[in-house]
């Protein structure tokens, strides 16, 4: 395994190289170069002792695909590597990844604080469904990081935010939030879906856990659902007993103490061994394969997504039918400096704008598009358009919609990697129709 080059010291491979290689080696038996799709539910044991050791977590290996699968584990390691984290855990969707994260962190009666500028589905998950499990989420305006400090209570166990926030154009200043969380002894969780690790690496700014909906830019082709949790490995879970699930013997695992036993990958180990085991939102091996394949071209795609988005944002800002454009790459954006700091390769390709004609003009425009697909997703190779107030953010009150940047007049675009002139032509004809 050792190579000549390694003897002269560890090599720091670049992002593009790691996006192609991390987590994947040629198959040890067949030499297969692409990661095989291990379409199997289960794995034979050598003997009963081997089986017992696997069930007890006292040796590494596969036993049942609800808990782990060789194709899925390549994806887990790859995303962990790209995020500069210690370990990853995949789930059936981004929402499942969020559920597994909070189930591992929280006890009934616990609280966490979330930025109010989130994907609408997260606002609903946190505000309504989590409440039924005894978890309370307090939403704050992230524009002033001090708002997070003011919302802290003795029961607060985490802060959750999107640095590049859905539905777009807003950038949250992560560093001061990390400092506030550090003083409070709680982890910062970042949903990095909108940026992808190519544009932003929250762990390098001090985030403790990163979550992705891999359905978006990571898989990148609109063909596979998935989510991943990455832990930095740097959070000290002791904190005077604030996280008993990590530091006390776990009755769900014969009295094993996860932090003590697994150290800096104790969080993802517990999320896998307890939350994924007991709730079962496992990623399918085929989806992992498609996502691994997608990630190989992440850097190429993101550069094209960003350059197309920058072109489109400029075009819309100059268009007479457009009232405003919220894209952090524009000189007019109040988030331009934060974008330059946290997203040096560009502030993503999903953003919003408002039409002078308001709600009705927006509906007409969405329906007049020929090239843009009218659907509820982002991060596809194809350009996408949607009216958030009637779709992704529909379950929110109008007040919440406006607070989340998804008011009734707002159109959200996810700019694809097609020819930029074709994208502009379609938008222009649709704006004329509106």
């Amino acid at each position, binding site marked *: *395994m*050792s*190579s000549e080059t*390694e*003897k002269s*010291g*560890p*090599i720091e*491979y670049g992002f593009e*190289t*790691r996006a192609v*290689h*991390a*987590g994947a*080696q*040629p*198959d*040890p*038996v067949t*030499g297969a170069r692409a990661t095989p799709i291990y379409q199997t539910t289960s794995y034979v044991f*050598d003997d009963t002792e081997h089986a017992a*050791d696997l069930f*007890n*977590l*006292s*040796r*590494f*290996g*596969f036993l049942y695909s609800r808990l*782990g699968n*060789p194709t899925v*584990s*390549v994806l*887990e*390691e790859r995303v*962990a*590597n790209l995020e500069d*984290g*210690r*370990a*990853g*855990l*995949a789930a059936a969707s981004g929402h499942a990844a969020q559920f597994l994260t909070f189930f591992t962190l929280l006890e009934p009666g616990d609280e966490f604080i979330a930025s109010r500028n989130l994907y609408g589905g997260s606002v609903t998950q946190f505000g309504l469904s989590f409440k039924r499990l005894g978890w309370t989420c307090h939403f704050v305006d992230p524009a002033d990081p001090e708002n997070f400090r003011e919302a802290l209570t003795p029961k607060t166990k985490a802060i959750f935010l999107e640095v590049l926030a859905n539905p777009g154009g807003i950038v949250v200043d992560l560093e001061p939030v990390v400092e506030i969380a550090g003083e409070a002894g709680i982890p910062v969780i970042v949903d990095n879906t909108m940026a992808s690790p190519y544009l932003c690496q929250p762990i390098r700014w001090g985030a403790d856990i990163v979550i992705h909906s891999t359905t978006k830019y990571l898989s990148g082709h609109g063909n596979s659902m998935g989510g991943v949790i990455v832990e930095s490995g740097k959070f000290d879970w002791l904190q005077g007993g604030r996280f008993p699930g990590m530091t006390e*013997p776990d009755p769900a695992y*014969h*009295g*094993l*103490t996860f932090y*003590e*036993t*697994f*150290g*800096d*990958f104790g969080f*993802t*180990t517990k999320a*896998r061994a307890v939350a994924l085991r007991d709730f079962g939102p496992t990623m399918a091996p085929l989806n992992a394969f498609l996502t691994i394949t997608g990630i190989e071209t992440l850097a190429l795609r993101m550069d094209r997504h960003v350059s197309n988005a920058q072109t489109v944002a400029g075009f819309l800002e100059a268009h007479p039918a457009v009232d405003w454009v919220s894209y952090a790459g524009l000189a007019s954006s109040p988030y331009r400096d934060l974008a330059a700091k946290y997203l040096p390769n560009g502030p993503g390709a999903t953003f919003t704008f408002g039409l002078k004609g308001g709600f009705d003009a927006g509906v007409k425009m969405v329906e007049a598009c020929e090239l843009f697909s009218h659907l509820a997703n982002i991060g596809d190779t194809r350009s996408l358009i949607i009216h958030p107030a009637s779709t992704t953010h529909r379950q929110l009150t109008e007040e919440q919609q406006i607070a989340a940047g998804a008011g009734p007049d707002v159109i959200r675009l996810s700019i694809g990697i097609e020819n930029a002139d074709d994208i502009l032509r379609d938008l222009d004809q649709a704006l004329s129709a509106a």
Partner: protein
Amino acid sequence: MNLHYPDTSIRDILRRVKTIAMVGASPDWVRPSHFAMKYLQRKGYRVIPVNPRAAGTEILGEEVYGALADVPPTFEMVDVFRNSDAAGPITDEAIEIASKKGIEIIWMQLGVVNHEAAARAEAAGLSVVMDRCPKIEYGRLFGELSWSGVNSRIITAKRAPFRR
């Protein structure tokens, strides 16, 4: 702490060592030391438990000794499964009997760091690893930890080693 050990040196240690004296090995099967001992046994190492409170009993088929000096065979590595303070006197004990017992490496477990003890051991010609677990490092460097989604940081176009 920011301790860095090149993969090549950790790999060399894990390849070179045959017998490990594990100080603080626990007879309780859910304790991390018990996990690590069982795992290392499976990988072909002989692990001899050292634990004064369990001296004279057996852990995983091996007799437990009260002190490093009591361990009859030679052992290349001392694995310290005790806290950072306790690592000091354990290291001194190991230095004293190093040539007689063939000790080459003092390995302190995850979270165990004692720079003074490490300096004394290195001055005596021993290699020191701190704040690492040999089970985890073995798993990471030989591919098994990747099965748990852990970032091994290994980038290679060579076949993964085939081990059961």
